């Protein structure tokens, strides 16, 4: 039984890998079209406003360490950060990044530096803009709120692993009339975000940031692979239910 699970897992990973590489490198005449996600439309607008006004973006990567199962949302946040940095590198105020684990803090600084380098503005990189604010859920929030409040932030993006404490962050953004988009992998945090932000990002929308801020073909391919696999899972679930109903399994 265990072998069947391992083989199934390996097959799913190999199919996903094949599709991802294929869809990334195959040149299409027309790029894929995705449905509109209001939160990302607002984020794109906020990037433009931040550059024009000379204000900052605040990106909160949460507290999902890379060696834990919560590392993937943080990686999605870092991918978004890379492109946001490049897009806002001409702004007077660089974006600030807060994180709740040491490894994310280091990677956020590295990603910020890479973004400036790609925009040929490495001199503007300030290591203090990528920072660890706390190692427990509440200390992280307590450290991130002053950064949001005092550092001329015009928009916040909370993308990563959060628990229900994310409501304190969104509430702080709301009280200071700053825009906030938020996405988390934890269902409890998603329920909290549904109630506390204007355009909540639910489920896999967390991982769609790259495709919606034009981060490249691989991000668009990722969304297509997710859609294909989702249809396969739906068919398997329906097929399994039907077989169970007629008593075959």
């Amino acid at each position: 039984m265990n072998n069947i699970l391992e083989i199934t897992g390996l097959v799913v990973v190999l199919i996903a890998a094949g599709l991802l590489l294929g869809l990334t490198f195959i040149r299409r005449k027309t790029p894929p079209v995705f449905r509109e996600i209001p939160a990302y439309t607002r984020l794109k607008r906020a990037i433009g406003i931040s550059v024009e006004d000379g204000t900052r973006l605040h990106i909160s990567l949460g507290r999902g360490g890379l060696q834990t199962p919560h590392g993937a949302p943080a990686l999605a946040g870092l991918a978004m950060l890379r492109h946001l940095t490049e897009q806002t590198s001409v702004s007077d105020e660089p974006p600030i990044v807060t994180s709740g684990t040491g490894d994310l803090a280091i990677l956020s600084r590295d990603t910020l530096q890479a973004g400036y380098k790609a925009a040929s503005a490495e001199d503007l990189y300030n290591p203090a803009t990528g920072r660890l604010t706390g190692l427990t859920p509440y200390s992280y929030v307590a450290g991130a709120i002053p950064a949001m409040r005092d550092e001329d932030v015009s928009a916040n993006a909370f993308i990563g692993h959060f628990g229900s404490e994310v409501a304190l962050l969104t509430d702080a953004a709301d009280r200071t009339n700053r825009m906030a988009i938020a996405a988390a992998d934890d269902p409890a945090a998603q329920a909290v975000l549904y109630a506390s932000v204007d355009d909540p990002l639910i489920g896999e929308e967390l991982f769609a940031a790259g495709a919606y801020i034009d981060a490249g073909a691989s991000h668009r391919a990722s969304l297509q692979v997710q859609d294909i696999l989702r249809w396969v899972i739906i068919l398997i679930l329906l097929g399994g239910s039907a077989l169970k109903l007629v008593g075959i399994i």
Partner: protein
Amino acid sequence: MRILAAGFAIASGLLVLLGYFVPLTMLLDIRLLLVQWAIILAAVAVLVGVLNLLGVHWHKVRTRQKGTAYSILLIVSLFASAVLGIVLGTNNTLMSFFLEAIIIPGEATLMALLAVTLVYAAARLLRRRVDLMTFIFLGVAVVILLAAAPFPFGKIPGAALIEWLLRDNFATAGSRGILIGVALGALTTGLRVLFGIDRPYGGN
């Protein structure tokens, strides 16, 4: 250097992934070793992160930014905790006192504040988005709270049915659907890093 970092990251990722699926003793040993290294590096990263936190607040103190008093408090507390922890050990009664008298009440206060914030957010939701889903969301939240609440006369009639229907069936099914979506997103994000398409390391 950047190519070396990418090569090492990709090779490590592939070996750990293979270790999950292919039950070869050699692969399992390599996976275990790499995961142990990752844990040690994560611990070192915490130290680097704390130094960064210290640097940010020291800069705030030096440039007399807003909230300097809090930054001084943070720096003093950080050094005091570190020195006491190293000299006395983490199981010392003084350390336990600081934990129980300062850190736990501080976090409990934020937890209590969170409860108020959540109630406020639920009330504001009716102003923020007035649609069918909002009414379903709030209605289900109220019904589940009532069904789970311990009244003086016990649980409300039909509480078990409500919990079974809403929590154990609809909510569980919905949250599994969401988690499948998250898992698919995590899979493709992980694969992008594994193939070196996304490289959040090495200044690339």
